[in-house]
Structure formats: C-alpha cells, structure tokens
C-alpha cells in the first residue's frame, strides 16, 4: 500500500519554489508489464537540472531531467513521455526490466 500522505516530494517542491527556483513535476501515470516504480511515483527537477525523487529504478531519470529542462526552456506547461524497452531513438535509455512507463511532466507555476 502506498502511503501518499507521508511522501515528502511535494513539500520539497514547495521549498524549491519558495527559493525562487523553477520546478517541473514528473509523475508516473501509467505502467505496463514490470516496472520498478508504481503509478503516482514522483520526481521534481529544477532549471539547473537538480532532481529529487524517482520515476524508475534509475533507468530513465536522466532522460526525464532533459525533458524537464526543455519544458522550462520552451516555456511549455506540460508533456507526456512514454518509455519502452530500449527506446533507442529517444535518449538511448530504456527500462532494463522490460516494462513500459508513461511519465507526465508539468511546470508548477
């Protein structure tokens, strides 16, 4: 059972915002097959590329950070990204577990 009440990632997002950082929130919204982090798992990224939390077991985090930085640069509100097994065309990252995940990224503004 996931204990969302005790998760601190959104509190941390607010701390970053209070420190005048731009924050993008990444959330796992769908999973297929085996994937290490369940739906609702979160990660935050700031404009410098610092991040906290996780959306996988380390497989796609770097790609998510890059996407979040582009979102800030292009000043877009949100984007949905799907990661499949060795998704070579995009970022050359994939999920070693053989699963697929969809991650939704959105600016907190």
């Amino acid at each position, binding site marked *: *059972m996931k204990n*969302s009440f005790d998760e601190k990632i959104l509190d941390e997002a607010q701390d970053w915002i209070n420190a005048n950082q731009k924050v993008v929130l990444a*959330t796992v919204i769908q999973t297929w097959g085996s994937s290490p982090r369940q739906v609702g798992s979160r990660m935050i990224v700031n404009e410098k590329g610092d991040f906290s939390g996780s959306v996988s077991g380390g497989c796609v985090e770097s790609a998510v950070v890059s996407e979040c930085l582009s979102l800030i640069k292009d000043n877009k509100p949100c984007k949905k990204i799907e990661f499949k097994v060795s998704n070579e065309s995009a970022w050359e990252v994939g999920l070693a577990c053989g699963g697929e995940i969809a991650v939704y990224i959105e600016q907190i503004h």
Partner: protein
Amino acid sequence: MKIKTLEEILKKKSSKTEFAILTNLENGDSEIYLPGTSPKGEFSKYAGEIENFFKSKKNGVIENSEIFIETYIKPIKVIVVGAVHIAQYLVDFAKSLNFEISIIDPRGYFASEQRFPDIKVINKWPKEAFEEIETNSSTALIALTHDPKIDDPALQYALKNKFYYIGALGSKKTHENRCQRLSEAGFTNDQISSIHGPIGIKLGGKSAPEIALSIIAQLVSQTYKK
C-alpha cells in the same frame, strides 16, 4: 499545476484529509477532488469513474480519457491485541506499508508507552478498548496474546463487525480449541474459518521479527484481495 493547487494539496496532506488530485493531461489543468463532492468543469464528465478510483484506492489514467487521478487515502487501521515482542516488529513494518496500528493490552506491564513510542496503546480489556476505536469492514485484527481471556472477546468483536482480516497467533491445537469456543459462542463455521489461524504465511522462521514478517505478508496479500 498551479502553485495555489500545490499549496492546497500540502494543506490537505498535513491534515490527513482524504482527497484526490485530478489532472487533465492534455491541457495541464489540475484540481483537487474531495470524496462525496462533484468534480468541477471538464472533470465532471468523469464523476462516476473518479468515484470508482477513489473507492478502489487506485491511481491511474481513466480509460479512454486524458484524465489522471491520484488518490490520497488514509492508512488502513490494524488493531493488534497483545503488546508483545512480535507487536514491536509489526509496528516497524506497518509504518512503511501504510497501516496504522493501535494496540490493545489490559496487562499494564506489557503495554508501556516506552516500548511503543508514537503508537496508540490502549491499556484496557478489548470490550472497553473497542469503544475508543472507530472500526468498520476495512479494519484488520491481529490477536497475539493466545490467551482466550484477552483474544476471544476481540475476535468476537472483529467477526461481528466484519473486519476484512482477522488473524490469531497460536499453534494448530490452540486454534482448534479457539474455534471450538467460538462455535459454542454461536459463530457459524463460515465466520470461524475466515480467521487466519495459525496466523501468517509459512516462512519457516521462528524469531519474533520473522513471525511479524509472516503476519504482515499475509495482511498485505489479503488487503490486495479486498
């Protein structure tokens, strides 16, 4: 997500109010939903689905839509009878698994606050103790004293109030005697056989943390069957 929405989420989170975050994945709109209310604007089309996600404690994208829902549901209440050594390990496991433990034990020397910091310990007999705890069919009971004087009234209460998980520690022989007593007290075979006894899944371990692990594993598996 708007900063205002984030602030509201944090407020609800710290007051442990049950709610859900609804997000429109197409345009980025998000809103907070409270159970029993009607979702606003675009989200109102999916009122039924949103309610179902909430009831089944699920997070995810509503089928054939671009609506994502993340639910914030209170921990499952687990009542442990017997402030024994195994209970100390149960408390440790429960914390990271979203179970909220309350302990009942009329024996003062067992149920001390030092042994169970941050846990509600009720130093009364089960009958009186249950007057202090709100329970329903989403509550679980773990009876650990294997003393009929203490366990039996709690088991009877849990059966009558249809707890979704009821487990009782004790050997096969102890459990047979327990079933016999419950039968004499008027409980049906179906009711009695719903009790997990001897409690826990078979792991092979005998130490207190191993027994606690086998109990918590059974509780988790029954919670997903619910």
